[in-house]
């Protein structure tokens, strides 16, 4: 599917938002959180630029599965490191191990369902952390209510991930064209929610 000027504009705006978040939105945090958020928003920024250059076809590349794992893993690590001090080490180990497992299971040809299971567990835990943690913290009053926007953004990016995953497995929920038409808007909305959540939360 050919990318329109509107798609390119939306992706460029996504890139600008991600760059803003990296440059300004995460100052005053500790170094691990800054690193984790920089990686997460950095992948969004670079991916947005590559999509503009190469078009939607780039999403068919096998490496996309590995790269797209970085966003939820890094973002959830940043959140846990920032707000759940007692789980820091455990979650850091989970992040490293699960990322290595994704790389390994995607690099070796396997006949069983292990690669899918690894992806499901990784995205499941990281995605639920991004979705639930900001909402729970907001509900408990530990952070400002608008921090829950990060959770809403997490839900949206999870939705985008699900649509793409089902498409890749050959059982699409929506047609490829519809998903691609929605993708730039979903990515922009997700990034905007993340940035707003961090700024006002």
């Amino acid at each position, binding site marked *: 599917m050919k990318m329109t000027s509107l798609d390119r504009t939306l992706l460029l705006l996504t890139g600008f938002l991600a760059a803003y978040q*990296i*440059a300004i939105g995460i*100052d005053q945090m500790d170094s691990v959180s*800054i690193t984790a958020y920089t990686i997460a928003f950095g992948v969004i920024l670079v991916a947005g630029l590559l999509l503009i250059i190469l078009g939607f076809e780039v999403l068919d590349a096998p490496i996309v599965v590995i790269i797209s794992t970085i966003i939820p893993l890094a973002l959830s690590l940043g959140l846990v490191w920032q707000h759940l001090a007692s789980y820091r080490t455990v979650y850091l180990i989970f992040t490293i191990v699960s990322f290595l497992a994704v790389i390994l299971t995607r690099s070796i040809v396997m006949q069983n369902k292990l690669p899918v299971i690894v992806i499901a567990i990784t995205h499941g835990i990281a995605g639920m952390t991004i979705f639930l943690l900001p909402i729970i913290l907001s509900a408990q009053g530990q952070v400002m209510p608008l921090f829950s926007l990060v959770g809403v953004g997490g839900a949206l990016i999870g939705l985008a991930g699900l649509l793409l995953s089902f498409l890749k497995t050959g059982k699409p929920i929506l047609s490829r064209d519809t998903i691609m038409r929605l993708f730039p808007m979903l990515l922009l909305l997700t990034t905007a929610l993340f940035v707003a959540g961090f700024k006002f939360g």
Partner: protein
Amino acid sequence: MLAQLSITKIRSKLSLYIPLIKSLQTSLLLLTGVAGYLSAHTTVNWLHFWQMLPSLFFAIAGSTILNMWWDQDIDAKMKRTHKRPTSAGQVTREEVLKLGIIVSVIGIGWALMVNWFYGVVVFAGLFFDVVVYSMWLKRRTCWSIVWGGISGAMPILAGRVLAVGQIDAIGILLACAVLFWIPTHTLTFSLKFFDDYNSAGVPTFPSTYGEAATRFAIAFSSVVAALTMGWASVWIGVTAGVLRVIIVLSAGLFFLAVTTVFRPSDRVNFSLFKYASMYMLFAMLLIIP
């Protein structure tokens, strides 16, 4: 009626002259000059700044026009360039030469009036581009691109010189970043239009050293460009946040460069070329306070 006729004539001339200055390339080089000036992070001398823009523009445009004049025979043989007004015969060689000289003299003269040192650097850019790169080396050796790169690095150095009054280490680093960025552009073109350059008899890296070596050279120069830009940014004193963005963008460039070497394809090569251009554009915007 007479006035309308002359307006139509001017318009038709302009429509032929504008392609001669390669507006996108000239704009990007002009932006590097602005970035070089503003990278000094000192109080802006607006009189200098507003004179730098037209003087640099005319000098860059002038050297591009003179290149078009000199390379008319090559351009006519290449599919990519044979429709240019010079090679298509829409403007005469003599006319292009006159235009190139006038525009160049305006640019260099204005630059020298603003500040003699700045003017000398601007002139060096034009001299390296027209005389050393195009006239002397382009048809003799594939290494001519180094001189093309040096001339392309002059606008950012000129901007810096105008702001700080000397050639300092940051200015040299910024110039090196542009110098190493330019091969990603020229070498990608020489791969993509391999047959064109061959038929025109222009020696290129792919025709001299082969495709693999060229891809490696592209990857190497983009990584060095990114590292140099990062180094310059640290010395300029950009904020930690801006530095993070530059590191992220550099990581993207590094990723594509490695992919170009280990999984070569025209598509990856093209994406590296495009990304490197975007990288340089954003890096220039980021070092401006």
